[in-house]
């Protein structure tokens, strides 16, 4: 679930890079204050963890499957800033090392998935946890994907009005919000179920292991 290269105009990706860069350095600073020496190894391994989560294929009804995103898991267990940094780093490594994902769309993807998706997951978990642990985890997974998808749909759908030639032809992406929002959101309502289920299972096993270790 990310926008590939070539569909976002510089009018959006340049400011998005500026905003993301500020947030990255704030997030990293925060993490270094909290974790001290362990901040860099911690981000490194959790990024690898996030990478693995994105390799997981979630089977969906109808015989299809999609890659998980794992944002809910990262945000619930380690907070929004870690989720944001790790997801951004995965996207950067995918773009620079494996040539996939897109360098121009990177900040938009990172902000949508890592920051907004992560914040949605953390908030949902915090609010619903007192009522029902598993429901809270499911909601965190479902919401993280759906809110991220909504932001991406808006970013894509804004392109035709943001960047068009003098005769009105869109330059980057042809469809407006009335197309992108339903086209992106309807499948993600279902994809979110897979993501929610994965969040419940992984966090559940992790909590059980942590309890047994007595920590």
């Amino acid at each position: 679930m990310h926008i590939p290269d070539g569909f976002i105009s510089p009018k959006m990706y340049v400011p998005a890079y500026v905003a993301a860069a500020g947030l990255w350095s704030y997030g990293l600073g925060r993490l270094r204050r909290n974790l001290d020496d362990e901040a860099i190894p911690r981000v490194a391994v959790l990024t690898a963890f996030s990478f693995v989560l994105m390799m997981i294929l979630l089977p969906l009804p109808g015989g299809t499957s999609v890659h998980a995103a794992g944002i809910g898991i990262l945000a619930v267990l380690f907070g929004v800033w870690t989720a944001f940094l790790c997801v951004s780093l995965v996207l950067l490594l995918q773009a620079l090392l494996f040539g996939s994902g897109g360098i121009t769309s990177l900040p938009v993807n990172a902000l949508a998935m890592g920051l907004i998706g992560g914040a949605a997951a953390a908030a949902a978990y915090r609010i619903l946890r007192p009522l029902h642990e598993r429901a809270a985890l499911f909601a965190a997974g479902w919401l993280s994907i759906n809110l991220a998808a909504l932001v991406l749909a808006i970013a894509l759908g804004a392109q035709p009005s943001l960047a068009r030639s003098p005769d009105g032809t869109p330059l980057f992406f042809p469809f407006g919000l009335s197309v992108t929002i339903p086209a992106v959101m309807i499948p993600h309502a279902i994809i979110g179920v897979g993501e929610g289920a994965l969040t419940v299972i992984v966090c559940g096993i992790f909590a059980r292991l942590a309890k047994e270790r007595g920590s």
Partner: protein
Amino acid sequence: MKDKAALLLYAAAVLCVTLVHDIRFLAAGLAATLLFSGRSAPLLAARAGRAILVFNGIVSVSYAALALLRGAFQPEFLLRMNLRVFLLTYLAFLLVSRVKPFRALSFSPALLHLFTLTYGQIIVFRRLFDDFRLALKSRSPARIGTRDLYRNAGAAGSFFLEKALHSSTEIADAMRSRGFFRDPR
């Protein structure tokens, strides 16, 4: 040095490709890039083509269908979009095939260290993750049930989570023992 220059060149090329909208210039840019990449051009082009096939296919076909219905079909749009996306994707693969981008980060030791560590962990994790998938396949019928797939994914997820946290402490200790951190604790 070479890597840093290549990365800067790549960034400049990407910016140009998104600032220029004239199809002739984009086509000329693609031709120049293909020439520049020499003998690896067909391979890289095939990879780029494969990478964009699905998404561009869907966007192109639905654009054509909707625009024809409304009687506002503009072939230049389709040409420009596909040309630009292909060129950007091709440039990314070209960069990856020619340079080790993180060497360009040598200006910041912390960043370089972060990238190197992350990359190493990803390679280890990726190979190990494959085994989870294969181990399930090895004991399952041809069509694996949804429940089993989720259980397996959950087990893999929590295994890597544990492993990640464990490695993080170990890496920090190893760095400490080699005097990586300036201020002693």
